[in-house]
């Protein structure tokens, strides 16, 4: 969800992050009012507040031209939806790690870890919080699925490849496992009925700023993440497989980028990073040289 702070572009098209913020907020509201998520209003305020403050501090510290609240909003809303904790300080720490990591853990002007993913993994490993993946119920899951598919339309499917490749392999292997075990298809269908999986597939792994630049690289990356996720789930018998899958594979991104280079993503010009890349590279390189560093 780390989304980039960009310099002002003329005739800017609709920013897909606004759509993402709207769908995450609606879901959070539904979760609070109908599903009674174990999230206090204070936790939400503190998570969002800390993320915005960290983003502001990072913007100042790195002398970025503009303070962009969209990226930290998406990170913090996702944290509110997924992270459960008894302590407000943990919520604040998670938001700080998520947003702060974008400014600190970087490789070739790209951050390495998806902010929300990193924060969640740190909290889970430290035993500070947990994820209630099964808390959504069918209605919320289906509604959110529709919203997520909508986001593909909004982003003009520019980076849908990584989401689709991940979901294709992950869901495909779940069904294959069911066939192999002679299970009814209600079991894999039930297994994918997880809100955390949707947030993961449509908001985390799809983050253009932490996935490989080239289309081929992204598909390889997504397949790797899917395999590790399934191993964690069915080999190690641990919940939240995809989160562990992504955090394990994220350090491979610079390596994949080195092997299969592509064009860097620009939120104002959603692109697949593939065919047009050759045309954009000469333009983008001098632009980025003249601009401040970008953080997202």
């Amino acid at each position, binding site marked *: 969800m780390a989304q980039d702070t960009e310099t002002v572009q003329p005739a800017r098209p609709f920013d897909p992050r606004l759509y993402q913020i709207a769908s995450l907020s609606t879901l959070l509201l539904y979760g609070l009012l109908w*599903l*009674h998520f*174990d999230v206090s209003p204070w936790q939400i305020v503190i998570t969002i507040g800390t993320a915005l403050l960290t983003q502001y501090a990072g913007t100042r510290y790195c002398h970025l031209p503009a303070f962009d609240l969209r990226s930290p909003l998406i990170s913090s809303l996702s944290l509110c939806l997924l992270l*459960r*904790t*008894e302590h407000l300080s943990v919520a604040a720490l998670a938001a700080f790690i998520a947003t702060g990591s974008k400014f600190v853990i970087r490789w070739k002007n790209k951050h390495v870890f998806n902010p929300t993913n990193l924060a969640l993994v740190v909290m889970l490993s430290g*035993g*500070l*919080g*947990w994820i*209630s*993946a*099964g*808390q*959504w*119920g*069918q209605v919320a899951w289906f509604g959110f699925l529709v919203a997520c598919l909508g986001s593909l339309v909004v982003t003009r499917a520019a980076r849908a490849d990584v989401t689709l490749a991940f979901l294709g392999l992950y869901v495909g292997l779940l069904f294959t496992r069911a066939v*192999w*075990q*002679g*299970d*009814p298809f*209600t*079991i894999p*269908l*039930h*297994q994918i009925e*997880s809100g955390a999986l949707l947030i993961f597939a449509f908001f985390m792994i799809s983050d253009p700023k932490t996935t490989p630049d080239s289309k081929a690289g992204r598909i390889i990356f997504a397949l790797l993440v899917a395999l590790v996720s399934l191993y964690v789930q069915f080999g*190690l*018998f*641990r*919940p939240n497989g995809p989160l562990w899958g992504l955090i394990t594979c994220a350090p491979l991104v610079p390596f994949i980028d080195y092997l299969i280079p592509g064009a860097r993503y620009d939120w104002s010009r959603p692109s697949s990073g593939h065919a047009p890349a050759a045309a954009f590279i000469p333009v983008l390189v001098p632009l980025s040289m003249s601009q401040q560093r970008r953080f997202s």
Partner: protein
Amino acid sequence: MSSQDRDPLRFHHKHAGDANLGAHPPAAGSLHRAGCEDGWAGWRQDLHVRLRVFLVFPLMFLIGSFALNSEASAFCGFYVGKADTKLFNKASEVVIARHDNKTVITMANDFKGDVKEFAMVVPVPAVLAQDQIHVGNPAILKHLADYSAPRLVEYFDENPCRRYALEERSMDALKSSMAPAAAGSIERPRALGVTIEAQYLVGEYDILILSAKESAGLETWLTENGYKIPHGASSVLHSYLKQGMKFFVAKVNLGEQSKLGLTHLRPLQIAFESPKFMLPIRLGTVNADGAQELFIYFLTKRGRVETTNYRTVRLPEAQEIPLYVKDKFGDFYRDLFAQQVTRENERGVFMEYAWDMNWCDPCAANPLSTAELRELGVFWQEQAGRMGTGQAQNVFLTRLHVRYDAAHFPEDLMFQEISDRSNFQARYILRHPWTGQDECPAATAYRQQLRERYEREAQTLSTLTGWNIGDIRKAMHIETAFVPAEKKWYQTLWGN
């Protein structure tokens, strides 16, 4: 063997009795330990009818003398009765004690038929040695069930004319009370691809640990050996075999049973180490004769347990309900549960209790002793010292209740232990009105509010249970209850 007796986690229960509503002596803990978070909500709801609680039962007077005040502030109310697990038909009870992959599962049943008919088939992650199998004490399980049962409590309204004078003192007392206290031949199975990995006699049970190459052979073997396998079980057995699981099969050894002089079946316990934190329920869903009832008690070190692949839902609690429910708390709770199951589209796993094993408030039964907990598999708890008492328990109890069938619970239950140690109890409140004759402006206001309160309680009861609101009002005698008819506006206009 009847069709209900074959699967691992379901057993007959034909006696659905009412809740035990008798006066139950509370533990001392109920008096000196308060901290019922939801109690705050109740206080906030109606500042005008702030309650002070008086001792209810003679026994409580005795224990009350040990508390700080003679008028103990039992923040969570005084215990009236509980909802037994026996209220529910076809109920099984399972206790899972787990820490660091080390797991002890206690499986209890209240099988009432001919013991010759009893059989149990449970998928287990590994071949178990004889000393990993144990026969438990049903009384301890009963104690655990009682300790964690949904409960009815009561408060008594005080004289509103005295209230304002005492209000401040009452709040101080409240704050101070918030501080915490403390087989067959070898050839035949081989031909069917079934391996008898181990065979034991444990207590009154004949136990087999089976592995198999394929489910059809296993099914044939089980059928040939007198285990009636329901139609459709084969595919489920197949699935477990593919997951590398073995089968723990238990039958009653009649000779041993009569030698031991037992008339009932004792719970079976197995201890093993596995990263899988799950409960196989799919064999229990094979029979299509309605939903199964399952109570799962988790004993853990860190915090509560929740399902990762289904919604874990807290039951509505701390609700004020009409006084007449006191005599039918069993019916109330059964209908409340059914209503909640429907509300969650029959896909919810319900939390009935989550509490630190050191205390309770109010107590439906005393917390379990260290020895009892060890018996249930709490291996991390040190043995009681020479004195045997006074040791703090490092055990958190979560009680989940699930009504499941194949359509709504296709997958086995998967769990995770989380760091949440906040307490929860399914607790329902009776508030006795003050019926004194004193007259003062506060008393007049109080009597007027009572009518609204009764209506609110009626609505709550109807929402919780789905009972007809008209019947509830009739049962409450709302029209004639305690409250004098309200005067018309003009009757008070000129003071007449």
